């Protein structure tokens, strides 16, 4: 169990469309690296951040192959965050909004996230030292 504080973050943007996603992941990473626990409520398009079927692609503009491009995927970044949490003995509780998942057909995730709903977000917020909302603009 982590001896640090607990942060709850709600994120809303779909992957590959906004800097918000990367910023949120950087904050989560920084908190975990310091041994703090993080609750994530992935709402609306953010449920797609952890979709298992994400694949890197080549870049025809640069003329690079899949191997050369080494295109990142958000599901790999999130998977790495779970490893960071494990290494730091901190807890990362990643909740994908179930209704948001259903309406998008986005139910196939990497290992780590769990299905939940607004009540999980509320409970996490009430039990946290701070809550940060990063909405879609």
């Amino acid at each position, binding site marked *: 169990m982590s001896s640090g504080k607990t942060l709850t973050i709600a994120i809303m943007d779909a992957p590959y469309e906004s800097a918000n996603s990367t910023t949120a992941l950087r904050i989560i990473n920084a908190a975990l690296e310091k041994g703090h626990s993080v609750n994530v409520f992935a709402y609306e398009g953010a449920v797609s951040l952890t979709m298992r079927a994400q694949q890197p692609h080549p870049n025809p503009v640069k003329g690079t192959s899949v191997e050369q491009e080494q295109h990142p995927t958000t599901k790999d*970044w999130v998977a790495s965050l779970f490893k960071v949490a494990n290494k730091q003995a901190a807890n990362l509780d990643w909740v994908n909004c179930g209704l948001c998942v259903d309406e998008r057909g986005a139910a196939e995730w990497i290992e780590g996230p769990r299905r939940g709903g607004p009540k999980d977000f509320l409970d996490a917020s009430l039990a946290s030292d701070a809550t940060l909302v990063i909405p879609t603009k």
Partner: protein
Amino acid sequence: MPKILNIIETAYRATLEEQDDTVLWLTHMLKNAGADTSILLRANAVNYAVKGQDASGLSFGDAKLMHPPEIDKDVEKIIEKAVPVYLVEEDAKERGLSDGDMVSGIKKVMRRQLPELLDQHDQIWHW
């Protein structure tokens, strides 16, 4: 072939996740496909023309970004492809950007000149 003006208004949308800018990339692809297209950088997207950008160093645990975006170089490459890249001069000045900060080949336009620029194109795609 219609003349298309792509207006980029919002900068750095997922450029780290994509390793480039999605609209610059799309414009490059459209040019390769034969489109007659131009770009107008406005609002915070004027920063795309600033040379010397460095977005390296991102990592999450063991996951490291191996090829960070090089937006300024992408702008230079698209200019080399004969895609005119315009920039709203006032938007640059408001952000403290001067000519010396910019990659070469950028065409500055004043806000009052925008109607004329838009009128030179058949389609306006405002991203």
